């Protein structure tokens, strides 16, 4: 909606929450990128920065929720205002989870830095993380621009993330079968890859919220999950 409210303080309230949400989104994007960079380059300082940076993300989520609760109590928002407040709450929860995954990636980096590199797995993981970060950027842009088409594209791109993850899963399994000394780093790398895949799901959920915000209904869940790993064995690898 372009028209301002008659009560201009209402506009300011909504703008404030959305600004906090976007700030949160920016921090999460950075955490994902830097987490992946730290992993690839075994950069312990950067990993530490990601770990400690998660507190700011958590704090923002609390603030977003407090503000949203206040707006509901004091302004009884309706229609698109209501959807704005509801989606802000959900999206901030998704972002907070993404922040946790990035932090977990950074924690595992401190362990992985002690072990020999395994193939090109950390390069693949950085690609995976990069893809998730770009999806997140577009999801946040689609939110700001109220662009349901862009949000739908983000939802579709989650398949790519799932595919990269599936490939990584196979690759890590192969390394573990080749040499049991690879098992420890591969286990950690697999968790990192899984974290990225989960982040993709949260970003997808953000994009779905954008579609709901703009259209008033959730997108159809036409996409079938591409995660084939529950059925994977070591046969034929």
């Amino acid at each position, binding site marked *: *909606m372009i*028209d*301002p*409210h*008659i*009560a201009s303080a*209402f506009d300011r309230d909504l703008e404030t929450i959305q600004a906090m949400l976007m700030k949160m989104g920016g921090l999460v994007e950075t955490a994902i990128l830097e987490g992946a960079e730290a992993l690839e380059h075994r950069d312990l300082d950067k990993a530490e920065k990601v770990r400690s940076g998660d507190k700011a993300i958590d704090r923002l989520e609390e603030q977003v929720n407090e503000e949203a609760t206040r707006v509901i109590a004091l302004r*009884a*928002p*309706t*229609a*698109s*205002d*209501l*959807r704005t407040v509801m989606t802000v709450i959900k999206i901030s929860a998704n972002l907070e989870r993404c922040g946790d995954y990035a932090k977990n990636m950074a924690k595992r980096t401190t362990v992985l830095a002690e072990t020999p590199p395994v193939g090109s797995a950390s390069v693949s993981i950085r690609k995976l993380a990069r893809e998730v970060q770009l999806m997140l950027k577009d999801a946040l842009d689609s939110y700001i621009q109220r662009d349901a088409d862009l949000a739908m594209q983000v939802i579709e791109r989650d398949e790519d993330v799932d595919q990269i993850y599936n490939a990584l899963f196979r690759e890590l399994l192969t390394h573990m079968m080749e040499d049991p000394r690879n098992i420890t780093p591969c286990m950690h790398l697999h968790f990192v890859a899984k974290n990225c895949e989960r982040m993709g799901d949260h970003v997808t959920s953000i994009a779905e919220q954008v579609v709901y915000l703009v259209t*008033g*209904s959730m997108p159809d869940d036409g996409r079938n999950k591409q995660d084939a790993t529950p059925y994977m064995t070591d046969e034929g690898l």
Partner: protein
Amino acid sequence: MNDMRLLQRTQGMNDIKIQANGVDVFYADNHAIKDVSVEIEDKTVTAFIGPSGCGKSTFLRCLNRMNDTIDICKVTGDILLDGEDIYDPKVDPVQLRAKVGMVFQKPNPFPKSIYDNVAYGPRIHGLAKNKAELDEIIEKSLRRGAIWDEVKDRLKQPGTGLSGGQQQRLCIARAIATEPEVLLMDEPCSALDPIATAQVEELIDELKQNYSVVIVTHSMQQAARVSQKTAFFHLGSLVEYGETGKIFTNPEDSRTESYITGRIG
């Protein structure tokens, strides 16, 4: 319990009580209602919302021919109650108003006892054969008006001595006393404090089990709280009509959206 409510909400298969087709209303050359068609359901609270002067009261008054009393007012189009044209020359407006009762913005008890206020309608319509029957109607109406316990010991005292909220519930009881099928309420809570408003809203919610209730309100939160169907009027036109939950979460028309979200549209 929740499932039941969901069912009630989604079903929405009540009978049509009032059907308006292409209704226009003119006050001399002021075109106050423009081609309004709407179906009002039985056993449902329908809210009319919209900015001041958009024609809510005018349209409401068409539903029991209250506009007949205004000389310059001309109504065209069809309004059917249970399929029968209420503007048919054969219809007696006084009988119609017993069937389609009305409650006004300002509680307006007659300067008579509480008892006589409620007895007024049943007496002119000859609904009671004797005193015992009348007493029964009075008690039943006051109970349905959710005010019996507060007045049962002072029925002979004047209705005007009650508090504003009590007066309004008395007026509702008075409207109920003629066994109406439809209750029209024009901003029934605008002169009441929040507690009295909550009591009247609770009453409206109970009334919908037996009546079709149409309420004009300038409080959107009230419309959201009490109604199942909402009609949004703007400049004499019915812009949007639908399930209240839908209107307040995802209205179709941008004018509705602007109005309910309090925007400068």
